[in-house]
C-alpha cells in the first residue's frame, strides 16, 4: 500500500509525443522556421496509437511529433543560424529605415548563410539511402529548372537546378541506365535503374507556367534547397563511379568539334558550356581514359543445382539488359524542330543512337538534314515537303514505345499522318484478373516473337473488311478457328470484343449436362462449393470480416475489368459501324 499517487498523463504514450506548438516553443522558433527545420531535417509528425491518451483526454485534432525527434532537433547547429538570420533581417531593416546605405551594404556582405552538408550526411548515412530518396528531388529540380527567371524564386536556384538536372541526364546517358519512358498528360515520366535502384521522375512539358496563387513557394524553395544539396552530392558520387570528371566536361574531341561554330553566339563561356552539356550530343570526359565499352563479363563460379539455374537466369537477364541498352545502336536520328528536342535526344542517346538537329534549334547538332546516312527522322507534323528516300519518317511516339517494348517496333504504325496506336504506360503490371488492353496483349505477343502470324492475320482481316462486308461471318469463323488453335491466348481474346460472344457458347456446358462424366464433375464441384460454404460459416468473426473484404475487393476489380472490356467492345463496334457506313457511302 501507500506510495505516491500516480498521476495521469505522466507516463506512457502521453510522454512520448509532443504537440507542434509545444515543440515550437521548446525550440524557440517561429512557425516558419520550425517548418523549415522540419523539412530540412526530414522530421514528420506521428500519429499516436491512442490519440486521446496522448492528447491528455481531449479529442481536438492536433499534430503530434515524437518527443525524441524534437530533442534531436534541439542541438542542431542550423537552429542558431536561423536565429542569426533573424537578427540579420532586423538589422537590415533598421539600416534601411535609417537610410544607412553603407551599413546596408556591409550587412549584406556579411549575410549569414548555412550549409546543409552535415544534414544530408546525417539523414542519409549511406549513399544508397540517398539514392533511394532522390525521386522527389529529381522531379522538383526538373520543375524548378523550367521556371522563368523572374519572380517566384532566386535565379541562382533555377540555374543550379538546371545545372544539376543536365548533369543527371548526362550521367544517365553515360551509364545507359534508362529503363522506361512514358508520355503522360502531365509530362514525361522516366525510369532509370541507377546502381540497382529504380528511380522515377517526371519532367513537365516545356511551357511557361502560370503560377498558382494558392501555392506556398517558400515551402517549395526550402525543399529545393535541400534537394539541390542532396542532388549535387549524389551527382558527384555518380560521376565518380563512372570515372567521369565532375563538374562534367565534354570529351576533348567533341569539344573541339563544337568549338569552331558557335563560340561567338554566347556572351559568357560558362553559359555556353552548360548549353553544350545540355545538348547531350557529346560524350563526357573521363578521369581515366578507358575503352568506350568495357565488357564486364560475369565471372563463372562453380555451382550446382539451383545455383546454376539462378546463374543462368541472371546471365540471361543481363544479356537482355545489354540488348536493351543497345536498342538504337547504329541508328542515326534527326529531330525536326517541332519535336521536344531535349527529351528525345536524351532517350535516343541513352540507347546508343546518334542524334542531331537543326543548327538553328540548338547548339550541339552534329550533322545536317541532308546527311544521307540518317536512318530515321522524327517528325511531328502531318506532312513534310521534302522527303529523302532512304530514311523513315516517324512520329516521336515510336521512340517511346520502342524503349518500353525493349525492341524496335515496326515503323509502319508510326509513319507520318498515321493515326497512332494508343500509348500504354510501361509502369502497369497486370495481375491476373486485371483488365489488359488488347494493345498490350499484341505487344506481349510481339515480344515473344509471334508477331508475324498475328500481324498478317490482323492485316488480312482488315483487308477482308475493306473488301467485302458479306464476308464478316466467315471472318468470325476464322477467328474461332484461330482461337481453338491457341487456347493459351484465350484470355487475350476474351477481352477482345469480337470473341466475347463466342465464348459464351453453350457447347462447352452441354457435355456436363448430358454426359455422365460431366454430371459427376458437376456434382463434385457442387459438393466442393457447399463444403466451402459450410466452412465459411465456421469462420471466426474477425477472419470472416477480412475474408469478406478481400472478396469484395476482388469482385470490384473484376467488375472494373469487365466494365473496361465492355467499353472497349462498344467502341470497336461503333468504329466498325462507322467504317461500314463510310464504305457504303463510297459505293
Amino acid at each position, binding site marked *: 500500500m501507500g506510495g505516491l499517487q500516480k498521476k495521469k498523463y505522466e507516463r506512457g504514450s502521453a510522454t512520448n509525443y509532443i504537440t507542434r506548438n509545444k515543440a515550437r516553443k521548446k525550440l524557440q522558433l517561429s512557425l516558419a522556421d520550425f517548418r523549415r527545420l522540419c*523539412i530540412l531535417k526530414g522530421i*514528420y*509528425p506521428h*500519429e499516436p496509437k491512442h490519440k486521446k491518451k496522448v492528447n491528455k483526454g481531449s479529442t481536438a485534432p492536433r*499534430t503530434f511529433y515524437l518527443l525524441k525527434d524534437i530533442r*534531436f532537433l534541439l542541438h542542431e547547429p542550423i537552429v542558431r543560424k536561423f536565429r542569426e538570420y533573424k537578427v540579420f533581417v532586423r538589422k537590415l531593416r533598421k539600416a534601411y529605415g535609417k537610410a544607412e546605405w553603407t551599413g546596408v551594404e556591409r550587412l549584406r556582405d556579411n549575410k549569414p*548563410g548555412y*550549409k546543409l552538408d552535415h544534414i544530408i*550526411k546525417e539523414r542519409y*548515412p549511406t*549513399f544508397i539511402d540517398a539514392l*533511394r*530518396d532522390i525521386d*522527389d528531388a529529381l*522531379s*522538383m529540380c526538373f*520543375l524548378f529548372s523550367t521556371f522563368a527567371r523572374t519572380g517566384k524564386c532566386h535565379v541562382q536556384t533555377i540555374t*543550379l537546378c538546371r545545372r544539376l538536372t543536365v548533369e543527371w541526364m548526362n550521367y544517365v546517358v553515360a551509364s545507359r541506365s534508362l529503363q522506361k519512358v*512514358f*508520355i*503522360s*498528360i*502531365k509530362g514525361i515520366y522516366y525510369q532509370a535503374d541507377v546502381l540497382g535502384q529504380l528511380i*522515377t521522375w*517526371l519532367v513537365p*512539358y516545356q511551357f511557361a*507556367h502560370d503560377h498558382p496563387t*494558392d*501555392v*506556398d513557394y517558400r*515551402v*517549395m524553395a526550402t525543399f529545393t534547397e535541400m534537394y539541390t544539396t542532396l542532388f549535387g*552530392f549524389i*551527382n*558527384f558520387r555518380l560521376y565518380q563511379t563512372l570515372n567521369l570528371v565532375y563538374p562534367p566536361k565534354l570529351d576533348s574531341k567533341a569539344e573541339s568539334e563544337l568549338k569552331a561554330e558557335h563560340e561567338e553566339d554566347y556572351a559568357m563561356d560558362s553559359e555556353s558550356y552548360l548549353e553544350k552539356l545540355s545538348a547531350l550530343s557529346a560524350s563526357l570526359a573521363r578521369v581515366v581514359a578507358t575503352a568506350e565499352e568495357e565488357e564486364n563479363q560475369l565471372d563463372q563460379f562453380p555451382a550446382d543445382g539451383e545455383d546454376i539455374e539462378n546463374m543462368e537466369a541472371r546471365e540471361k537477364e543481363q544479356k537482355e539488359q545489354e540488348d536493351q541498352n543497345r536498342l538504337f545502336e547504329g541508328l542515326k536520328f534527326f529531330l525536326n524542330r517541332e*519535336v521536344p528536342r531535349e527529351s528525345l535526344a536524351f532517350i535516343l542517346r541513352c540507347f546508343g543512337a546518334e542524334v542531331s538537329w537543326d543548327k538553328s534549334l540548338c547548339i550541339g547538332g552534329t550533322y545536317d538534314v541532308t546527311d544521307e546516312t540518317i536512318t530515321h527522322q522524327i517528325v*511531328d*507534323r502531318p506532312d513534310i515537303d521534302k522527303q529523302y528516300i532512304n530514311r523513315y519518317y516517324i*512520329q516521336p*511516339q515510336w521512340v517511346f514505345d520502342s524503349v518500353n517494348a525493349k525492341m524496335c517496333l515496326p515503323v509502319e504504325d508510326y509513319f507520318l499522318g498515321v493515326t497512332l496506336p*494508343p*500509348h*500504354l*504506360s510501361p509502369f*502497369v503490371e497486370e495481375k491476373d484478373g486485371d483488365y489488359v488492353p*488488347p494493345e498490350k496483349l499484341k505487344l506481349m505477343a510481339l515480344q515473344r516473337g509471334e508477331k508475324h502470324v498475328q500481324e498478317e492475320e490482323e492485316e488480312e482481316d482488315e483487308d477482308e473488311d475493306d473488301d467485302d462486308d458479306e464476308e464478316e461471318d466467315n471472318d468470325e469463323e476464322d477467328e474461332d478457328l484461330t482461337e481453338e488453335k491457341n487456347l493459351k491466348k484465350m484470355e487475350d481474346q476474351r477481352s477482345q470484343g469480337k470473341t466475347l460472344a463466342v465464348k459464351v457458347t453453350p457447347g462447352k456446358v452441354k457435355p456436363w449436362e448430358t454426359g455422365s462424366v460431366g454430371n459427376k464433375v458437376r456434382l463434385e464441384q457442387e459438393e466442393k462449393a457447399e*463444403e466451402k460454404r*459450410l*466452412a*465459411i*460459416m*465456421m*469462420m*471466426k468473426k474477425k*477472419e470472416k470480416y477480412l*475474408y469478406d473484404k*478481400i472478396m469484395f475487393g*476482388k469482385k470490384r476489380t473484376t467488375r472494373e475489368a469487365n466494365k473496361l*472490356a465492355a*467499353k472497349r467492345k462498344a467502341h470497336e463496334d461503333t468504329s466498325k459501324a462507322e467504317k461500314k457506313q463510310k464504305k457504303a457511302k463510297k459505293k
Partner: protein
Amino acid sequence: MRTVNLESQKTGTMSKAKEKSAKKRVVEEDDDQLPIFDKDVTEKKAGEEEDADLSDSEESVFSGLEDSGSDSHDEEEDAEEGDDEEEDDDEAVILDEILTKSSGVETATEPPATDKNKPTQPDEKPASRRKMKKGEGVAMDDGGEKGLITIRHGDEYEHDTSDEEDIRNTVGNIPMEWYQDYPHIGYNLDGKKIFKPIRNKDELDEFLDKMENPDYWRTVHDKTTASDIRLSDEQVDLVHRLQKGQFGDINFNEYEPSVDFFTNEVMIHPVTNRPQDKRSFIPSLIEKEKVSKLVHAIKMGWIKPRKPKETTPQYYDLWAKEDPNAILGRHKMHVPAPKMRLPGHEESYNPPPEYLLTEEERMAWEQQDAEDRKLPFLPQKHSCLRAVPAFSRFIHERFERCLDLYLCPRQRKMRVNVNPEDLIPKLPKPKDLQPFPTTMSLVYIGHTSLVRSISASPTGQWLVSGSDDCTVRFWEVNTGRCMKTLEVGGAVKSVVWNPNQAVCLVAVCFESTVLLLNPALGDRLVVSSTDQLITSYEPPEEDKEQAVTWALSEGPEHDNGHRLTLTHPKAVKQVVWHGKGDYLASVMPDNSSNLQVLIHQVSKRRTQNPFRKNKGLVQCVSFHPLRPYFFVATQRYVRVYNLIKQELTKKLMTNCKWISSMAIHPGGDNLICGSYDCRLAWFDLDLSTKPYKMLRHHKKALRGVAYHKHYPLFASGADDGSVIICHGMVYNDLLQNPLIVPVKVLKGHQITHDLGVLDVTFHPTQPWVFSSGADATIRLFT
C-alpha cells in the same frame, strides 16, 4: 527682442521707484524741491502741447523707441540751460556740452543710443544732476564709450535700491505699535529721536477733519512718521489705475507694434567673419598614423580585400567514408516516404479508348469533390505529341507532394497479404462425418396452420405434432400417414412424447392446460399397461393444496385418449418430460410471479413449485438426462439447479439477447441454446459458463434446436426456412474440446408470415431429422 523686453520691464520698475521718491518729496514739501514739481508740470504741459506719448521722458528713453525725443530734448535743454543759468554754474554747462558732443562723436556707430542718451539726461532730477555732472563727467572723459554706458546705468539705478529710498525713520519695517508707549516713534538719519506729534488726533478731530477738510479723502496717515500725507493728483490717479488693474503709467502702451529685428531675409555677409583655423589646412597627424598602419597591414598581407562570396555550392564525395556506425536507431525507425504513384494507362497522352471517360462519367467526375474522385485528372486523348498542352495543375501536385512529405504523419501499416482461401478453416470433410440427413424424403401434410411442436416416439415409429389449428396429429414416420387427429381446446403450444419406452403417453399443452394422452399406438401391452398405471393411482390420505388440479378423463374423452388433465392457473407454453418418464415440467412464462415453472409427478399426481423467487421470464426448461439437474433458460441466462440439494449450481451467460430454445446433449455435459438474434451458443458445462462456440449460421431468428440421442449431430431450425445440421462430436477425453462442423443446410420449408421452421427434432434411432414449419407441414430429412 529679448533685450528689448527686459529693458521695458526695467523701465517699468524704475518709473515706479521714481514716483515713490516723488511722493516722499511731496510729503516733505521741501521748498527746494518745488521747482522740480513745477518743472514736471511744465514738462507735462509741454508734452501735452505736442503729443502725450512723446512728452514722456523716462520710458521712451530706455525703450529706445522714441524718435521724436529730440524735440523735447531741445526744450529740456533749454530749460536746463535756464536752470544752469539760474545757478550760474558755467563749467557744468560746458562740460555737459562737451559730453554731448563727445558722445555724439564717439557713439557714431550707435546713433540711436546717443539719441536716447541725450534726452535721458534732462530727465534726471536736477538736484542729483548737479552732483553728477561734475564727478561723472570726469569719469566719462577717461572711459570713452564704455564710460558713457556706465554713467547712464549709474544714473538709472541711483535711486532704485530700497537703501536709497527717502527714509526718515530708521527703525525699519517693524510694527509701529512697538513704539506706542514711547514719546518718539523712531530715529532719524542722524540718530535723533523722532517725536510723535504732540497731540494725537482724537475722534472728534477726525470727524471735524472729515467734515471740513476737502482733501480728507486723499489724506493718508503715515505710521512711520505719524504724519498725514496728502496724495497728489497723480498719485490718486495712480491708485485709481492700479485699482482698475491698469498699468501705473498712463503713457505706457501695452500694444506696441512689434518690430522684426531679425528678419527672414538672408544676409549676404556672414554673421561672423572669422577666418578659418590653420589646423583646418594641415593634414591630421592622427589620421596619417591610422592610414599608415592600414597601409602597413595591407602590405604585410594582414588585411585582404573582401572576397566575393561563393554562391555556387561546392560538392565533394560526401559518402567517402561510409561509417556503418553512423546508422543509428533513428534511421532504422525512419519511415521513408512512400514513392509517388506510378501512372497508369489512363494518364497517357494517347490512351486506349476504353480509358477515356464517357459523357456521363465526365459529368459525374466534374460534380464530385476533388477528394472523392477516383482519378485526380480527366483522361484525354491527343492525336499527336505536338498537341499536348501543359498540365495546369503541375505545380499544385508538386506542392501537394511537398506538403505530404512534411505534414503527413507516417505509419507503417501492415498490409494483410493473405490468400483468402487460407482464411477458411480446415475442417473435416462432411463426407467423412456421415451419417447425417441430406435430403428431404417425406412431407407430412395435414395441418392447416403453423405446426408449433413435434415429437417422435421413443421407438421411432410415430410422430406427434401440435398445431395452431387446435389439433394434435399422430403420424407414422415411415409412411407419412396421419394415424390420428385429436381436437383440443386451443392452439397447441407443445407436444412431447414420454421418453420411457414402457409408457405410451404424450403430453400436450394448450392454453392453460396440460393434457396427458394415450395415443394407443404401437404395442398393445404398453398401451394397456399405461392405462393401468394411470388408473392404479390411489389418492393419499391427507389432501394437499396444489397449484394444479389433476383430473382424470372419462367418457368420450377417454375414448379419444385423454387420460389426465392438469389445469394450470396460467397459460402454459412448454412441457418437458424427465428422462425416466415420471416427472413432467411445465412452463408458464410470467414476468411478475414466482409461479413460472411447475414440476409434476404423474404416478403420484403431485405438483410442486420448485422456485421461490422470480429470476426473470422463463423461456424454456429442461431436465438433465442422467443426473438430477434442472435447466431453466430465462431471457439471457441459463441457470442450472440441483434438484436434490435444491440450489443453483451454475449460471450460464449466453451472450444472446433472447433465448428461444435449448437442448441438452445426451451425455449431459454440453448444451446448445438457440436465440432470436440468430445465434446458436454451444456450452461445454465442464469448461466454462461462457459459450464454447458461438455459431452464426442462420440469417434469422432460431426457433428450435435439437440433439440426436445417439449420433453426434445437432440441428437448428430458424426463420430463414432452413435447418442446419451440424456434426457436434463430444469426446470422452475431457482434454479434447468438442468438434463442431456444419455438415448440411437443409431447405424445404416455405416462409409464411416471416416464420420458417418452428421446431426440429431427431429421430430417436436413425440419423433423420424432422422439422415443422409455419407452412403447416412437417418434413423428414434422411
